[in-house]
């Protein structure tokens, strides 16, 4: 059993949780993920490790499906049946001095500080761009401000920071002619697809963290197969970070939607049943 040590909401939509998982925390690097299996009836859900501290790992998520809705109701002292990780390849962070840009959109912002920090620790100049639909949904601004050399904040409706998408400041940076060595873009699939098209004409190496449906997370099932550079790869062992300009986005986005109807059915089932799936310390 894996104890939840801290749990709170970062915004109306995004939750954050610190879990005691020593073997994950001690070995985790930026860019890797873990699999959470909340209880015997639950799904195995991959979530990016968004921070570590001693024996604790941090995960951040939106309460959308059955598992994440359930996670959002848990609090400190509750336990998760299984936490596995760290999984996947770490971010390809080079020893500096390079100039790197870390772009986060929506819940993806939660996964930017760990990459920004790793890039910073490796002696790089780190520019952060974080975006949200509006001010109330913006998360982790202070944390990113403390790490990054420069930070741009955008909101779609202009209620805070620069009005528009996170791709805006990225476009401006590219056009300015400043030397940018690497870009990371973390967010929903569509946001990553659109945002990564900005850097393509400039030939800037751009990484995205893909989040296809997974089951085991160890290369065993092929559920998370993605097409990158025309080759079939498994996001769980070959990724989750890939060269954005090589990703077959239509393939990814279609496969991500494979269980949308089932997810809805599952959520409705649990809402209708209200049964207590006891998740306290056993």
């Amino acid at each position, binding site marked *: 059993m894996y104890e939840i040590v801290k749990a709170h909401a970062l915004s109306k939509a995004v939750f954050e949780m610190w879990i005691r998982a020593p073997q994950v925390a001690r070995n985790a690097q930026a860019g890797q993920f873990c699999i959470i299996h909340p209880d015997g*009836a639950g799904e195995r859900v991959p979530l990016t490790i968004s921070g570590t501290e001693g024996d604790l790992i941090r995960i951040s998520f939106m309460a959308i499906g059955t*598992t994440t809705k359930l996670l959002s109701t848990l609090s400190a002292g509750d336990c998760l049946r299984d936490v596995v990780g760290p999984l996947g390849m770490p971010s390809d962070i080079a020893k500096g001095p390079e100039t790197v840009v870390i772009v986060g959109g929506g819940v993806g912002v939660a996964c930017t500080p760990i990459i920004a920090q790793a890039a910073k620790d490796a002696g790089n100049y780190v520019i952060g761009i974080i975006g949200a639909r509006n001010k109330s949904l913006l998360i982790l601004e202070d944390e990113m401000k403390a790490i990054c050399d420069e930070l741009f904040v955008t909101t779609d409706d202009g209620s805070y920071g620069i009005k528009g998408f996170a791709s805006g400041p990225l476009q401006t940076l590219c056009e300015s002619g400043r030397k940018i060595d690497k870009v990371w873009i973390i967010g929903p699939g569509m946001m990553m697809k659109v945002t990564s098209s900005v850097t393509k004409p400039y030939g800037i190496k751009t990484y995205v963290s893909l989040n296809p449906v997974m*089951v085991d997370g*160890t290369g*065993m099932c092929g559920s998370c197969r993605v*097409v990158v550079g025309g080759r079939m790869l498994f996001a769980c062992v070959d990724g989750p970070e890939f060269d954005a300009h090589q990703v077959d986005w239509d393939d990814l986005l*279609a496969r991500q939607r*494979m*269980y949308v109807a089932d997810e809805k059915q599952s959520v409705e*089932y649990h809402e209708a049943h209200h049964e207590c799936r006891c998740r306290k310390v056993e």
Partner: protein
Amino acid sequence: MDRDANLRVTDFGEVDLGFTETEVRAEAARCIQCKKPTCVNGCPVGIDIPAFIHACEMGEFREAARIIKKDNMLPAICGRVCPQETQCQGECVLGNKDMPISIGHLERFVADWERREGIETPVRLPATGKKVAVVGSGPAGLSAAAELARLGHTVTVFESLHEAGGVLMYGIPAFRLPKDIVRTEIEQVKKLGAEIKTNYVVGRSVPVAELLGYDAVFLGTGAGLPYFMGLPGENLCGIYSANEFLTRVNLMGANRFPEMDTPVKKGKKVVVIGGGNVAMDAARVARRMGAAVTLMYRRGEADMPARLDEVRHAKEEGIEFMCCTNPVRFIEGENKAVAGVEAIRMELGSPGDDGRCSFEPIDGSNFTVEADVVVEAIGQGPNPLLLRMLPELARNKNGSVAVNCLGQTSVPKVYAGGDVATGAATVILAMGTAKDAARAIDKMLRGASQF
């Protein structure tokens, strides 16, 4: 005795109910107790088959269990899933004129009898103080762990999934191997003193340096990497590897969705590609979830590598066999979901250098089979995760880990057995190679010559 096919396709309960005590004693009495028993040669772990059969005939099932467990710690599993027709029973001399002894059923009865009456844990040898890491808790890992623990070593088993058992849990469906049986056998391995750590991914949550810090390491990571055919349309929604399809159902309980949270596309018309045990399992799982199932295999039915019982059971359950047929592409329907399989007929070609005839496509014989779910069961390779972290480990051409006759790899103190070393094979072969490696590890740890 098998349950009625029409009944059993409505649930995941065990298909073969086994023998009664009377049947067992009668069957055992048929054994002529050969002076030079050929059946033992057919057993990858070398069980003293005539001796345990004799005990069965006498009704001394406790003694029979002791005899079996000298060589096989997982008899309830092997009695159910071994391809006996090509092993012990295939060698039985009675088979020349009549039916061979149903050795598998006898083994299974003895194991089930012991499970009912109370299982005897074998005596452990005095502790050696040596520490051995076992990677993977499938048939190979469990056998190696049991043997090493029995020999007095301190054994830690690392399992990446949340349940121990490997393919016995995620791969083989409950109607063929009930999961409480697997759990009981795993408990026996624990009772011998082996510690099983689930949720530990070696190479990730256990660094390789830590692994190599053990006095010896046994790799039993299996053949978990599913192969795909590489055909157009393979990423359409509804196309699964058999590993994924079976894992969703067997390990995650997706057949009980939404009571269980993990979904699976159940499908109305399912096409399963392949002719091995895994293909049969996938087809029969799909059938139990209500689908009409077609099994597509590129060779003839007689060439199928599946156990005879599995083929027979699948047919009884209404699986349509489409042999000498190979898929060429997957047809896209709405919302990027699969709508069908375009296939081509195959015919026997001329024999190659190895004397085995290959099957070749018949030009222009293409046709389409409707399908809303497709499962590819065309084989598996070794899981790349750990092997990538240990690049100095020498590999065979097919990607499996190269070992000598003792199970030694190219890395000192590291041994391997089961599918990761042999390529995808059977549970019992995995156990046999694991047991051999365990004994070699024991010898090494006791300071005997390393060869």
